[in-house]
């Protein structure tokens, strides 16, 4: 099978260094505003800081996959004497909560590592975290060419959510209607 190299981007979160300032949320939302940087709104961010100072809990969590259905369990963990709800750590844009969704439309949000052209030196949340709680790492790995999954675009992600909510048929109808309006 043909091999090719691929850059794996990752962000190492050192929650011990996080001071709960939420600069990362602000920066992420600004980067993804339209036009870029024109506005900011942490509620639209693809990183969310769980900040419970009285319990000394500070955990930056990145938005992951969209999920159409919520999990059954609601577990909690006690780590180092502090109680965390599993849901808080979860990266999914999930119907059970408001996190990782566009506040107006409810469309799911997902961290895209600030993919853009031209590429940034480092993701914007990392750049704005001046205390080093977020650390960017790049690794080259070899992967099988065929195995590489095509990337799901932001629009597709949104569509997927709409399809789950209204059914494929209805969405297709609406798209057709909108297309006509445009003409």
């Amino acid at each position, binding site marked *: 099978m043909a091999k090719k190299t691929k850059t794996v981007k990752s962000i190492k979160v050192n929650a011990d260094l996080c001071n709960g300032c939420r600069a990362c949320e602000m920066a992420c939302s600004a980067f993804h505003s339209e036009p870029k*940087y*024109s506005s900011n709104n942490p509620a*639209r961010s693809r990183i969310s800081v769980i900040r419970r*100072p009285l319990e000394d809990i500070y955990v930056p969590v990145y938005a992951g996959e969209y999920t159409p259905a919520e999990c059954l369990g609601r577990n909690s963990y006690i780590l180092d004497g502090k109680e965390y709800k599993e849901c808080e750590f979860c990266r999914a844009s999930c119907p059970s909560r408001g996190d990782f969704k566009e506040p107006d439309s409810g469309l799911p949000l997902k961290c895209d590592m600030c993919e853009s052209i031209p590429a940034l030196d480092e993701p914007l949340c990392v750049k704005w975290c001046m205390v080093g709680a977020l650390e960017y790492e790049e690794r080259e790995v070899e992967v099988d060419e065929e195995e590489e999954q095509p990337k799901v675009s932001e629009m597709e992600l949104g569509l997927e959510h709409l399809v789950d909510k209204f059914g494929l048929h209805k969405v297709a109808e609406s798209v057709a209607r909108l297309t006509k309006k445009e003409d």
Partner: protein
Amino acid sequence: MRYAETGYNLEIDLTRGSYDRVESDVVDTELYLGGLGTNAKIMWDRVPPETEPFSEDNLLIFSAGLLCGTPATGCNRTIITTLSPQTELMCFSMMGGFLAPEIKYAGYDKIILSGKSKDLVYIWINNDKVEIRDASHLKGKGAIETSKIICEELNEPKAQVAAIGAAGENRVYFASIEQGRSSASRGGIGAVMGDKGVKAIVVRGTKDINLAEPDRYFDLCYEVMDYIRFRNENPIPNVMPILAGLGSPQEMKVHDEKWHTENFMWGNSRVRRRDFWNEEIAKDWEETMNSMQRRLISCYNCPMTCGATIQPPGMDTYMMKCFSKLTYTMAAFSDLEFGLGIAQAATEHGVDGFSAPQVMAFALELLEAGILKPEDFPGLPEENEGRFYYLLDMIVNRKGIGNILANGTYWAAKEIGNGAEEYAHNNIKKIEQLPLKLGMMNPVYFLMYSTGEKMNITQIEGQFPQAPFATVEEREAFVKDWIQVPDDKFKDYLMKWEFRGEFSNPYYPTIDMCCEIVDWMEMMHYIDDALGMCAGLSSFPLKPPYHIHNYPKFIEAGSGIPMDEEKLTKAVKRYRTLVRANNIRRGMRRADEKPPENHWKKRFPEYEAELLSAYYKFKGWNDDGIPTEESLRDLGLGYVADEFLAKGILKAGADAPQESASE
């Protein structure tokens, strides 16, 4: 579209239980800048001078600064403005934390409370949705506890809460408004909130804040961030550690207790303990701090971590910042463990960490002097620390003697009489000051103490070093990259300043230089209070990242309002004068503008009078501290001049000859 600001204020009438989203005029932003500036305009327009602090007509304004909610690092101040029960003047306490950006994201620049609610309520603002909710279940609850309960009952972990404790509910004149990471403490604004029947304001916002010139704005932000990194790596040499870095005084990080305990006063601001510090105490206090401190924490969008979460043994966690770590310790002649412990209770009750300990020490002094009697303190514990907990409880619940003490040292002394006034010795404009007593009168500080309307020295000092540098080399090193000066002449002033001889205090800096230095320092604070910037990154520390040269660019790129240094300087002068006008209209005069008599041992009454007159003139005020008609009109404050003339506060033409003679 409005940029940086939202263009809307939320008006809440507590008497009627109604609310309204009201568009503001962008012209006012251009003239008064926002934050404290537009607050001052609203107070002038809507709160007549005869209004009592505890009346339906008094307003309580929670304002975000003009640039809060934009990406500018450290721009997160909520500026709360009302009439103070303590000073009976307009007061404006600020707090950092997270509230101001949240107000912006909810779609407002200000929340303006008017009227009074009959029952205790809290206000839940979720973007456009506003609810006035019953708070009877929160009566008497701690401020931090209240925030926790509310977030849980609303199931809104990301909502920001500003709440009062028992002190605010009971209208203690030095009650604070607490917001977790931060508090607005000075002037008794918490008492006004309590008087309005509001236990808490709860805000959640998920709307956008727009920038006029996004790319330019981000570039400015990156310059500031780079400079912060530079300053963190290059602390200023030859000054005390606490003055070397950026941020609000880094009391949580820096172990500077030696300096404070030996230079500040203990008890009721009386006793200096020059040889207090020793190895053993150092070890002991460091252990205390390290064992109770959980983590250093920041305000919204700031890397500076000036606060800390503190957990005293057997007590709930709270958040602390600044010098309140030592105020209780020193008032009680105790140790850090006691100080950090009682500060937890005091934070929950919501009292000012400067005033409260002094009031308690004052009460015990009066007892010792026989002016207050043992009968006034039924059940008073024998040991000292217990007495402070006892007094705190009496005060915040206004029990017995606590009912009088709750009005602060000035008013309490008046009521107690019998020579008690002598013991309320550390006030300016009726409000307790930092416990400092020094030797030689310092002319710059004399002017700041006298004329500051923010009632706290830390809210006016900052840009110019507090003391001369010992050698020419040190001075050269300091002025070399001093980019923040509005004019290079300030470098010359510093270069010549000596510890002794002709070029030393009190006659150097000269009167003219003092005027310029004070005016510059004050201007930077007023800019911060309009924009919502943390003084810790701007007006308070030496060589800060924000200054008069980059601020106009931030305002212009953020809000789209064309701005340059000249226009900004004039706008600040305009609104600073309007703040004074509010107070002049309420009766403040030259006679009120003086430091505590015993602040310095060596005083120079005639020279001080000369200084004050010169500064008034420099500011465009007459010899009684009242802005002159000419300067008011020049600033576009003709409406103030008209009212002053109509009321006889100013007499037509009275100041004109004097002004022209000085040209």
